[in-house]
Structures are given as C-alpha cells and as structure tokens.
C-alpha cells in the first residue's frame, strides 16, 4: 500500500525529505502552518511566539499536565511566502542535534487537493540519524504512556 506521508532519508546524507498530499485546498493547508491557534491543535505544541516574516523568530513549547517542559524548539524565519513557501531554522533545546534548516513548500494539485514538501538539512549525517532515532524513541514513549494510562485505569 502507498503511504500518504512519505519520508525519504537516503543513507549517508544529512537531509530528510517528507512529502504528503492532502484532501484540502492549498489555502487551508497553508493556514494550518501559518495560524498559531491551528498549529497548536495539530502539532500539539504551544506557540509562544511566531513572528511570521523574514528574520522573525518563533518559539514552540510542549508541556505535560504538571507544566514540565517536554519539548522546546526555537528558530528564525528566512522566508514566509503565503501559499508557497516557509524557510526557517529549527533548534531543539537540550537535544544534541544542532540547528536544522527547514524548507517547506506548498503546492496546489487541484482546487480541492494540495501537497507539502518538507526538506530538512542537518549539520551532519550523525545528527540526522539521531533525529530519526529520537522520533522512534518518542513513539515508543508515547505507546508506553498510553499503556500506563490503561493500566492506571485498571488499578
């Protein structure tokens, strides 16, 4: 089966390509990336700051119920072209993965469908692989958390 979201991480390269087609008009796909209230809902992070213009900065944070910071990422926009392109830097706090460059391009397919391409460039191959692993560990942690919730209910 063809996956809706495709990830291409070639061996020995310091980049990742993510592509996805949506049953959404281009304008709505872009809005989901441009409006803080919408980003918060699908990314699950709080948007503390988002100055959507050239050299504007952004600041996202994710906390647990107790208010502990689980994840904090910041960076600067270099391009913010509505319905076309967002170029920004991305740095995760307290994670040894350096600064990454993210080039996100939006594309109209039909009046009702659109596509996003995210090209991320890392400082090194090792750091890219670290991010992929981190994603995996996060997935496992999330599964564990869910399991814990279920177990707690059984208590």
């Amino acid at each position, binding site marked *: 089966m063809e996956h809706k979201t495709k990830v291409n991480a070639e061996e*020995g390269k310091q980049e990742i390509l993510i592509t996805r087609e949506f049953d959404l008009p281009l304008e*709505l796909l872009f809005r989901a990336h441009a409006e803080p209230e919408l980003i918060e809902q699908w990314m699950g992070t709080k948007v503390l700051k988002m100055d959507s213009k050239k050299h504007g900065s952004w600041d996202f944070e994710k906390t647990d119920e107790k208010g502990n910071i689980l994840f904090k990422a910041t960076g600067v926009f270099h391009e913010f072209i509505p319905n076309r392109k967002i170029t920004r830097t991305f740095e995760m706090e307290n994670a040894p993965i350096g600064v990454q460059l993210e080039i996100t391009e939006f594309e109209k397919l039909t009046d009702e469908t659109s596509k996003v391409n995210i090209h991320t460039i890392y400082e090194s191959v090792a750091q890219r692989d670290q991010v*992929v692993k981190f994603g995996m560990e996060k997935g496992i942690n999330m599964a564990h958390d869910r399991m814990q919730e279920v177990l707690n209910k059984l208590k």
Partner: protein
Amino acid sequence: MNLRRDVFQAIADPTRRAILLLVAAQSMTAGAIASNFETARPTVSKHLQILIECELLNQEQNGREIYYHFNAKKMKEIDEFIEPFRKMWDERFNKLESLMKKYKK
C-alpha cells in the same frame, strides 16, 4: 575497543557502502573485495570488521577461504528504522487534515 556498532554509523562511510554494494551482488573473499579499492588492505579489513559487527555482513568458511555474504535482513531493519519517524509525521498530518476540513466551505 569493541563498542556495539550502530548500523547507521556503518553505512555512513562511502567505502563501506561500496563494499556492501559489491557483496550484495556476489559473495566474495576479503582479498577479492580489497582488490576493488585503492585503499590499503588493512583498512578494508577494518571496514569488513565493522560491517560484520553490525551484522550487515556474514562470514562463511568455504574450504580454506572465508566468504563474505550480504545480510539483506539487516538492511531491511534500516527501512524499519525510519518507519516510526514516518508514522509520527503521518499522525500529525492526519490531524491537520481532519482539523482543516472543518474550515472547508
């Protein structure tokens, strides 16, 4: 030093990737592999050692010669390695899609 080797670390090196390509086509002895490279024989041996440690290559004794085989199963693990990362993005984008459908006219 005998650190546990990381598969990604193993394939990050261009010589090791070239070795894998060679051996994937046909099982070979260390000498035959080394003859494809300008690199000194001990360097090739070191690369082979790393590839064996991370199980991308298997050794098999055939008479007096040791043949190196490509372990396709291990290579598949690399694909599976990326899968949780892909799923994470897929789930995010599924949320985005259902969220934004509410805004459709």
